[in-house]
């Protein structure tokens, strides 16, 4: 009894820098304000976005808002291995 610990799922968002076109759609879409525009440029010469903090809830809003096929990936972290 009392042993069921509800594991809180953890997520992380990753940007494939060279595939980002810097449109900022993901920044507006994220309900948690995780993504921010950087001041760095990628291989195409475009200012790209990056996750600026932790706390991604894995909702996928940024992924669907992003017009580029592979710029954004969202992963679920398997805590059991930790």
């Amino acid at each position: 009894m009392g042993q069921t610990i509800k594991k809180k799922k953890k997520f992380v968002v990753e940007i494939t820098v060279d595939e980002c076109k810097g449109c900022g759609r993901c920044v507006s879409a994220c309900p948690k304000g995780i993504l921010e525009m950087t001041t760095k440029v990628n291989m195409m010469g475009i200012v790209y976005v990056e996750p600026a903090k932790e706390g991604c809830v894995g909702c996928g809003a940024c992924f669907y808002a992003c017009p580029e096929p592979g710029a954004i990936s969202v992963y679920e972290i398997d805590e059991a291995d930790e």
Partner: protein
Amino acid sequence: MGRKLKFGKPTGFFDVFDRRPGPIKKNMHYCPGCGHGILHKLIAEAIVDLDMRDHMVVISPVGCAVFAYYYFDAGGISVPHGRAPAVATGIIRANPDSFVISYQGDGDLGAIGLNNFLQAANRGENMTVCFVNNAIYGMTSGQMAPTTLIGQKTATSPYGRSVENEGYPLKVSEMVAALESPIYVERVALTTPANIMAARKALRKGLTNMKERRGFSLVEFLSGCPINQKMTAQQVDEWIEKEMIPYFPLGCFKDIAAERKPISRPKPTFDKKKVLNALVSSAGITKWGAKSTVLRKELRVKCAGYGGQGILSLGMMIAAMGQSRDINVSWLPSYGPEMRGGTANCSVVLSNNVIGSPVVQNTNILIAMNQPSMNKFLPDLVDGGILLYDSTNIAPPKTDRRVYAVAASDIAIKLGNIRCANSAIMGAFAACLKGFELEDYEDAFEEAIRQTFRKKKELVELNIKAFHEGRKSVETRNV
């Protein structure tokens, strides 16, 4: 620490966009923030999730999405502006196992291609149209589209679209929902996360309808073109929410998929024999496909005369003769006021090679059945060309070409029907062809006559008789 991909590049895309020219193989060609990219992802995800990819052809006509085939790991075709629904119809009718997405912009679907689109919708073709309404011609740098809003400034409406000048923006979804055939019509927007998820659902619904063969679905996607609107992606989304949606309200306009039985159409066949038989069985053709050695060279024929002389069917019979001997043929009538009693002409090309153009300008054989036509087309006869004319009503011409004459109209009158003069002159034409090594030309032409008159059987024997009379009485005038 393990991790699992929850959202990532959909597998309906190629991993590397090898078809895209240039060094960039992972990005799409769209401008930053373009709505096309958002929709492409939804499609790439859905065609795999719904297990439709292996039978899917994404058809994209002219517009920014014309290069969609770079990206989807599925069938893909680029087609001329506005023609996607016509090509899609061909694909699904010829191969009912296939699925097609007709991916069209507002200029494409609403302007140049409106008729193609509406007719396909009205026929209830089993397809899903993804209509990207960005209220502008994106690819050509921002001209006014049929869906451009009142007051919206574009390259071709620099003072803003006005009702007085251009009328109201075209409400495509509302219009299509009013038709009987379409089963599902919904308008969505590629803006906020909530709207994008609604768009994702609508797309999947349209595709599922197609999978179940229930008919025509239209999903209209309000979409941003930040570049031509001269806005950021965020501003263009705001503009869509504030300006576009009030005029183009979101929502489902029609959904009767559940009421419709799956479409079943006649099964096509690709068996060459069966196709040939279906085409010629009633035509009395016996030697279909028997290769002829005639026409090692291409023969370009012009038939010309008076509208009532059966000029077009003369050309048709000659073409049918060629067809029956597996010769490539083209037949091109000249329409116009001629059809109502003036001069009429048609061009026939017979060739053992691919025919480049059906237009006959450099004529090898001119068949003239009245004086004005002969005068008109004689100058087009090439060096070494042949003139064949009806000597009943044409005076002997002055020309250094080879000339054959036959009193075709006389022959026809004697046989009791002036209308078989065209078969009589065709007999003469067959005789001229002797020099071209047509070994069984008599049979071939007889078959052509049988085919042409297959619905008027009483005329077959008369025309065959006229043919042989013409063949026997042709005269060489100057060789």
